[in-house]
C-alpha cells in the first residue's frame, strides 16, 4: 500500500482534475452545449479518428490507418467549429430532431505519473469510451473504444490539444458519425 506522501496527494489531485475535465466535457456534449465544448479545445487541436482493418498478426502495425491515410475524422478547430455550426442550423437532418447521446468515460490513465501539469506543458492520457446514441424511435448505436488525449494547461485551465479515437469496429456499424467522441 502506498504511503500518503505530499507527492502522492499531488498526483491524485491532478488525476481528479483530469477526470473532472473529461466528465465535464462529456456533460457539455450530451447537453449539446457545443460552444462551451469548443472552448475546451486549443486552436491547434487535431481531432483524429483513424480506421481499423482486419490484418494478419504479422501485419499488426497496419491494423490502424496511419495519419497520412484516410480516416473517419481528421479535423482541425475550424472544421470542428463548422460541424457545430451545421448542427446549430436546425436543418442538419441527420441530427434533427436532436439525438439522445450519453458519453461514458472510464479507465483513465496518465502516460506518466506526474504530480503537476504546468502552464503550457502537455500530458498524454488514455481512456475508454462508451458512447450510446438513440434517435427518433428505435435507432440506436453503441460505439466503444479507446482514446488517447493530449491535454495542456492554458491560463491555469486544462484544454484538449490532441485527440486520437480508436473505435473497435472495422466496418462502421453506425450509419453516420454526427456525434463527437
Amino acid at each position, binding site marked *: 500500500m502506498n504511503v500518503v506522501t505530499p507527492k502522492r496527494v499531488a498526483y491524485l489531485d491532478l488525476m481528479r482534475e483530469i477526470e473532472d475535465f473529461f466528465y465535464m466535457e462529456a456533460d457539455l456534449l450530451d447537453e449539446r452545449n457545443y460552444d462551451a465544448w469548443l472552448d475546451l479545445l486549443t486552436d491547434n487541436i487535431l481531432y483524429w479518428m483513424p480506421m481499423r*482493418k482486419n490484418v494478419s498478426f504479422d501485419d499488426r502495425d497496419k491494423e490502424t490507418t496511419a495519419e*497520412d491515410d*484516410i480516416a473517419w475524422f481528421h479535423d482541425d478547430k475550424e472544421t470542428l467549429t463548422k460541424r457545430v455550426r451545421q448542427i446549430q442550423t436546425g*436543418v442538419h437532418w*441527420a441530427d434533427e430532431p436532436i439525438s439522445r447521446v450519453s458519453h461514458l468515460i472510464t479507465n483513465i490513465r496518465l502516460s506518466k505519473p506526474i504530480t503537476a501539469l504546468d502552464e503550457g506543458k502537455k500530458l498524454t492520457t488514455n481512456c475508454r469510451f462508451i458512447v450510446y446514441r438513440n434517435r427518433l424511435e428505435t435507432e440506436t448505436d453503441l460505439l466503444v473504444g479507446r482514446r488517447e488525449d493530449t491535454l495542456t494547461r492554458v491560463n491555469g485551465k486544462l484544454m484538449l490539444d490532441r485527440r486520437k479515437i480508436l473505435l473497435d469496429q472495422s466496418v462502421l456499424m453506425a450509419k*453516420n*458519425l454526427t456525434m463527437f467522441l
Partner: protein
Amino acid sequence: MKSTDFSACDLVKTAEGEISREIFVNENIYEEEKAQVFARSWLYVGHESQIKKPGDFFVSKMGEESVILTRDQKGEVHVFLNSCTHRGMKVCRYDEGNTRTFTCPYHAWSFATDGQLVGVQDYENAYQPPFEKSEWGLIEVAQIGQYMGTIWATWDKDAPSFEDYLGDAKFAFDLGLCGWDGSDSGTELLGSVQKWIVPCNWKFIAENFAGDALHVVSHRSVDLARLGPSGKEGRRDDYGKLVLTAYPQGHGVFFGVVPLEQTRTEYAESKITSDYFQHCWNQRLKNLGENAGTCPVVGTIFPNMSFHAQQPRTLLVSHPRSANETEMWRVYFVDKEAPDEVKKFLREYYIRYAGPAGMTEQDDMENWNYATAASKGTIARRKPYHYKAGLGVGGKHKTVPGIVTEHPVTSEQNPRAFYQRWAEYMDLGSWSELIDAQKIRGGAPI
C-alpha cells in the same frame, strides 16, 4: 432463370414517370435482383493501386458476396469468390495484404494467387483414385475489365466487354478519372477504404448519384456551415453549367461545363492547392482542347458504382446486404503527381464532405434510411414514387455524348434511365435480349 412471376416493367413506368415502391422494399424482388442484376452486370471491385505487386490482394465484394482481387506471381489480375471449394469457408479473412497462397483455416486446402488448388490435406491417401485438382480451384469471375485504374468484373461470360458496357459514359471517365491536367499521368487512391452500413435500399444511393439535382436542397445546413475549400458559403467551388446525361446502359452523369476562357479561383483556402490547380488547368486546356472545361461532377455506372470527379474526388460502391440494408465502400483519389501538401488538404476536405463523418453525406443517408423505412407499409406500397421532372425533354449536346438535358437541370431523366435498365435486367433472360433492348431505346429522350 427467373423464379418469380412479376414483371419489372409493370412496376417501373418510365413513360409516366411512376415507379412502384415494391422495388425498394420487397424481399422477393431483392432475391431476384441478386441473380438478375448483380450476377450479370459489370461490378467495380477495386483499383490498380490496391494490388501493385505480385501477391498483393484486396478483399472486395460483388453484391452480397465476398471476393478476392489479386495479382498473381506472373502479374495477372484475378477476381475469385472468397469461399473454399471444399467446404465453403472464407479462404481470406484479411482486408488486404500480400501472400503466395490462400490457405483455408477449416481443412487447410490452399490456393495459389492464380486460384489453382495447390494443397489438399492427405491428398495421396484419402482420394483413390486421386481427383483432378485443376477442377477445384477457386471460383473465378467470367471477365475482368480495367479502365483508368479502376478494376471491374462480371460473373457472366455473355456480358459485353467492359468498354462496350460503359458505352458513351466512357467520356465521363476519360475526363474525370484522369489527372487534373487532363493527362493520363494518372490518379491514385488516397488511402484506405471507408466501409459503413446504412439501413436503406441500395438503389436510393445509385439514383442519388446518377443525377438528382432536386435533392440539393437537403444540403442547406452544410452550405451554411461553409464546408467548401474556399471559405465561402457552399460546399463546393463553382463547377460551371450543369449538363445532365443519361445512357441506354443505365448509367447517369452530371457534368459541369466551365467556359475555356474562365479564370479559375478554386481552393482559395490553400494557396499551394490553388496554385497547383491553376497550373493543371493551363495544362488541361492544352491536353483536352474543347473538352477541357467539361468534367463530371457526379455519376453512377449501373448498377451500384458511383463517383465524384471534382469536389470531392471519390469512388463509391453500394453493396447490397438485404432489401433494406446497404454497405457503402468509399475511396478517394488524387493526382499521383500532386505535392504532399495538396494531397493533405484534399484528404481533409474530402472526408469532411463525404463518408459517415462527411457533413454532406450524413444528410443524404438520413433521407435514404427513412425513405426506405417509410415505404415498407401496406398502404405506403400502394402509391408509386413520382419521377416526372423533365419527362421526355432530353436531346443532344454539341460535345457531351448521351441523352442530354440542360433545361430543366432538375430533370429526373437519369433515375428514369437507370430504372428502365434495371427493369430490363429483371425481365430479360439473356444478354442478347439486354443488348437489343438497349439498342431499341438508343438515344431517345426518357
